[in-house]
């Protein structure tokens, strides 16, 4: 397809026609049309914008890619009354979707999100957990773009956790060796006293570029925990935000990235303390081999009404080779004086020489020592999730990747 015909896919007319053809309800056809209008109006982000400072997106305009849909597989037991399945089905059957979909991540805030809102397809998923319902085990949503070649995918996930509900959702993203562009959107509504755990498990192929947004809105006493394991892909930029609106709500963001070759990871987090006595915890870690790169830009905002807020933000980067590079940019915006704690820590450097010597003195060679050290360094992100299979598997994957990484 030529550039012109590709771009035509994103026009309002084309988007509306495709939506009608899909059988979307009228309100959704209109939402997608709105998104197409936003897409037409929005420029691509540039590095002059602070969240985009470390990542050049020239040549990655969605308009240059035909829209495709990743296939989705869902594993895990869904209790009666809950809904885990196609977002298109959910839009027709589950009443809350109309009110919530696109209300947290709006199409007007970014060209990538506009493209997503206009074009998400069979890779849209809805998780609705009714009042008081707790999922027995994790639900794993595998977003598989391995059939996609040189096209864009727009996975979308809406999680609505009603009052006192509880769920753990693992989102695993995979693709093949061909170039893929992904722009994902995950909206999470954590109702009063609900507990939502979301684990992003990036297993993209080596030529995939991914831009994913996660935004959670937390009601009173709710708890929203996000974990992210970034190992695959050529460029992975994740923006994870927790809007701590309800009094006593708690968010945690724990991310790890293991880079090699020319992989580029970019994490942006926002912990927005809006309600009183809210708590946030952020720990973003990377271990970088080859000429890989990691950037972190995180904002802890403590609003006027967020009295008694407790916030802790840490970014640690281990450079495993001389060519690797990490940038760390943690920011505090504090508007009230009455807070419990607001800490931030950032570190970039090589592995602790004493720890390395200690392990070498036990017979481990440099690579073997780094394999153990990095597995240990990463454990904190999954340790909290209570998913031992994923924790064990992670350590195996870290060891395998470091077995061939350029140190």
């Amino acid at each position, binding site marked *: 397809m030529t550039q012109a015909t590709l771009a035509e896919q994103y026009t309002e007319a084309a988007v509306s026609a495709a939506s009608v053809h899909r059988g979307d309800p009228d309100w959704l056809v209109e939402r997608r049309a709105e998104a197409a209008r936003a897409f037409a109006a929005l420029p691509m982000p540039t590095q002059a914008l602070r969240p985009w400072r470390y990542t050049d997106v020239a040549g990655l305009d969605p308009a240059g890619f035909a829209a495709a849909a990743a296939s989705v597989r869902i594993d895990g037991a869904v209790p009666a009354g809950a809904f885990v399945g196609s977002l298109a089905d959910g839009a027709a059957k589950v009443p809350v979707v109309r009110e919530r979909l696109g209300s947290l991540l709006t199409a007007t805030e970014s060209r990538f999100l506009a493209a997503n809102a206009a074009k998400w397809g069979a890779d849209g998923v809805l998780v609705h957990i009714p009042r008081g319902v707790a999922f027995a085990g994790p639900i794993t949503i595998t977003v598989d773009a391995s059939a996609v070649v040189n096209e864009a995918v727009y996975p979308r996930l809406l999680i609505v956790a009603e009052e006192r509900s509880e769920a753990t959702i693992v989102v695993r993203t995979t693709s093949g060796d061909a170039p893929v562009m992904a722009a994902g959107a995950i909206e999470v509504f954590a109702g009063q006293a609900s507990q939502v755990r979301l684990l992003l498990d990036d297993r993209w192929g080596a030529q995939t570029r991914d831009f994913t947004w996660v935004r959670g809105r937390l009601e009173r006493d709710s708890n929203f925990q996000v974990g992210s394991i970034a190992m695959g892909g050529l460029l992975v930029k994740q923006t994870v935000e927790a809007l701590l609106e309800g009094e006593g709500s708690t968010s945690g963001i724990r991310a790890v990235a293991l880079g090699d070759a020319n992989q580029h990871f970019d994490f942006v987090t926002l912990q927005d303390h809006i309600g009183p006595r809210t708590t946030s915890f952020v720990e973003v870690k990377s271990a970088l081999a080859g000429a890989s790169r990691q950037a972190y830009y995180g904002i802890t905002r403590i609003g006027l009404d967020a009295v008694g807020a407790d916030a802790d933000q840490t970014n640690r980067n281990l450079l495993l080779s001389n060519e690797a590079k990490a940038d760390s940019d943690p920011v505090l915006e504090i508007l009230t004086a009455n807070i419990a704690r607001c800490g931030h820590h950032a570190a970039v450097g090589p592995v602790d020489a004493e*720890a390395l010597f200690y*392990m*070498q003195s036990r017979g481990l*060679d440099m690579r073997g020592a780094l394999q*153990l050290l990095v597995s*240990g360094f990463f454990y904190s992100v999954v340790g909290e999730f209570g998913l031992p299979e994923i924790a064990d598997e992670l350590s195996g994957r870290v060891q395998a990747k470091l077995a061939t990484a350029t140190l």
Partner: protein
Amino acid sequence: MTGSPILEVRGLKVSVAAQPETHIVRGVDLQVNAGEVHALMGPNGSGKSTLASTIAGSPAYKVDEGTILYKGEDITKWRPDERARAGMFLSFQYPTPIPGVTMVNLLRSALQARRGAEVPAREFIAEMRSTLAQLKMDESFARRYVNDGFSGGEKKRAEILQMGMLKPDLAILDETDSGLDVDALRTVAEGVNELKRPDMGILIITHYERILDYIKPDFVHVLVSGRIVRSGDFELAKQIERTGYDPILQELGITRTEEAVAP
């Protein structure tokens, strides 16, 4: 009882790698043969740990002169992991905490490295259990992060646990006795004694005679300002316990202040 040489240190001079003008070990000769236990004593800051770390291959130190032979082979330029796999073991005076890495993971990797082969899980677990039991250590210990939040005594036991698993041919125990209560000291010393083999050499760095009551030294050396100034038998350790280092220093015509600034 003397066997073949395990460790031969010849004319060794060592400085701090990051500050080459800081000379710490200033001409040491030491030979440990199979079946022998040597004790190395000396005032704080005399260079005992530096000598031990250098023998183990620490990159923090630079060998300016001299050689280190292990089982007759010049290992002065070997990497620390090569020395360890060949059967050298250093019990650290200050074991390094490694958050996130469990004892069990370290032990497993270390044992595989030492044997140069996969160690079947069952065999590994059985061996770890019996070594833990021998050192009167709880099994939950193995699931903790290496030296992370360990008490002083726990750290020293953890070192000997590793020694017990790795079965070295040369063990250098740097103040393994410090931080241990009397019962723990006996347990650890008995553990070391059980690991002692006729084809093995042991170098014990200590400030106190007590550990030597359990692990009887064949030779005792005194290191002052980076040089071995006196060697003797167990009697020398007992004498130091009674009188301290001052008589030796006086005899050598060094006062403590001089010692601190001597080039």
